């Protein structure tokens, strides 16, 4: 089978119970079962993970860097969403 026919998968690893899965990289595989096995073979050779997710790259819907104005900018002019916007006197303890 030629490499071009293989699908691209993204690999996410949970390094320790309780933590989020983090993107580790990608790989080519015939299907999701195989992708999971390949991921185990190449991405978790030194106990890097206790759990693996593989996701077809095509199934990931991603924002574009160019979108960032309309996507993320609005919160920059809303400083009142941050705790530091409010002056709280020291005497009353942390809030």
């Amino acid at each position, binding site marked *: 089978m030629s490499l071009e026919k293989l699908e691209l998968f993204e690999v996410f690893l949970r390094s320790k119970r309780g933590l989020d899965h983090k993107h580790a990289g990608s790989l080519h595989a015939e299907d999701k079962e195989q992708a999971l096995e390949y991921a185990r073979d190449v991405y978790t050779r030194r106990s890097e993970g206790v759990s693996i997710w593989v996701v077809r790259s095509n199934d990931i819907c991603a924002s574009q860097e160019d979108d960032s104005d309309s996507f993320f900018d609005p919160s920059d002019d809303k400083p009142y969403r*941050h*705790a530091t916007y409010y002056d709280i006197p020291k005497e*009353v303890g942390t809030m």
Partner: protein
Amino acid sequence: MIHSVDLYSKNRIIKVVNILTTGEEMTKYNKSEAELEAIFQQKIDSEQKIEPKDWMPEAYRKNLIRQMSQHAHSEIIGMQPEGNFITRAPSLRRKTVLLSKVQDEGGHGLYLYSATETLGIERSELISALQSGQAKYASIFNYPAQTWGDMGAIGWLVDGAAIVNQVSLQRTSYGPYARGMIRICKEESFHQRQGYVIMMELAKGTPAQKQMAQDSLNRFYWPSLMMFGPHDSESAHSAKSMKWKIKRETNDDLRQKFIDQTAPQIAYLGLEHPDKDLVWNEEKGQHDSGEIDWEEFYAVINGNGHSNRQRIQHHVKAHEEGAWVRDAMSEYKQKKLQRKINAETAA
């Protein structure tokens, strides 16, 4: 965050998780329920999180669904008393702050519903349990918000009490719940601080404004203490929840923390403390306090608070009135799909 327990038993943990990562694998190893439960409890005891695909006792799952959905419902119902004041807030700046806080609470509801769904229950089931009254939410939201001062008292006291509880829950044993709490706590600090700022402004204002602050404090102080639930000796779910580390600190311990942190905040505002029996106990290093009116607590929990019916009616109404949006979305999805098929057949 690394717990000392983890370091101590690190080798053993790695061995256990390598062999027994998912429920499926455990079934493959053909373990009895008792053995599975022992492994589960061992994970809990060594401060490992339980993750969605792990085997877990049915009662643990049920207990979590109850607590997490109740938490989610509280975030959503909690939008109502403050939502009422967005148009009434006395300046544009205060409107934007309040709107922003209420939006955050909607987000918290979403995080928590989604985390609850990892336990294998559907959103629609959760919503109908709320609407039928089968599921509870924090009884504090059955108290009406009557004045601008209440916006201060709610942010400061209600969110303040919620934070004490949620900080503790960052260490809860169920991974998705713990991670949700970490995210939520990051956003909560703003909620409490904006509330306290409202109180400070009122407390140093005209005598009438100061009176408004006092009145809000008087009405919200005791119900905030009730947010921590019944005394440990009366709490139906406490013992099991502690053993499973769903809860990390008892109702009474959390309540004490809140009482102690709130006392100097009331003093700073120059307001009268609503608890006349409150005294500093030097020996214990904490406050002794007066007894909560538990009759009121149970009356409100059992549906007889001021706003119980109104809160649920409003939720049902909003849900029904939003049906056309959900319908339109699924209609649009069909339309897009059909267009795609048409384009493909044309090509």
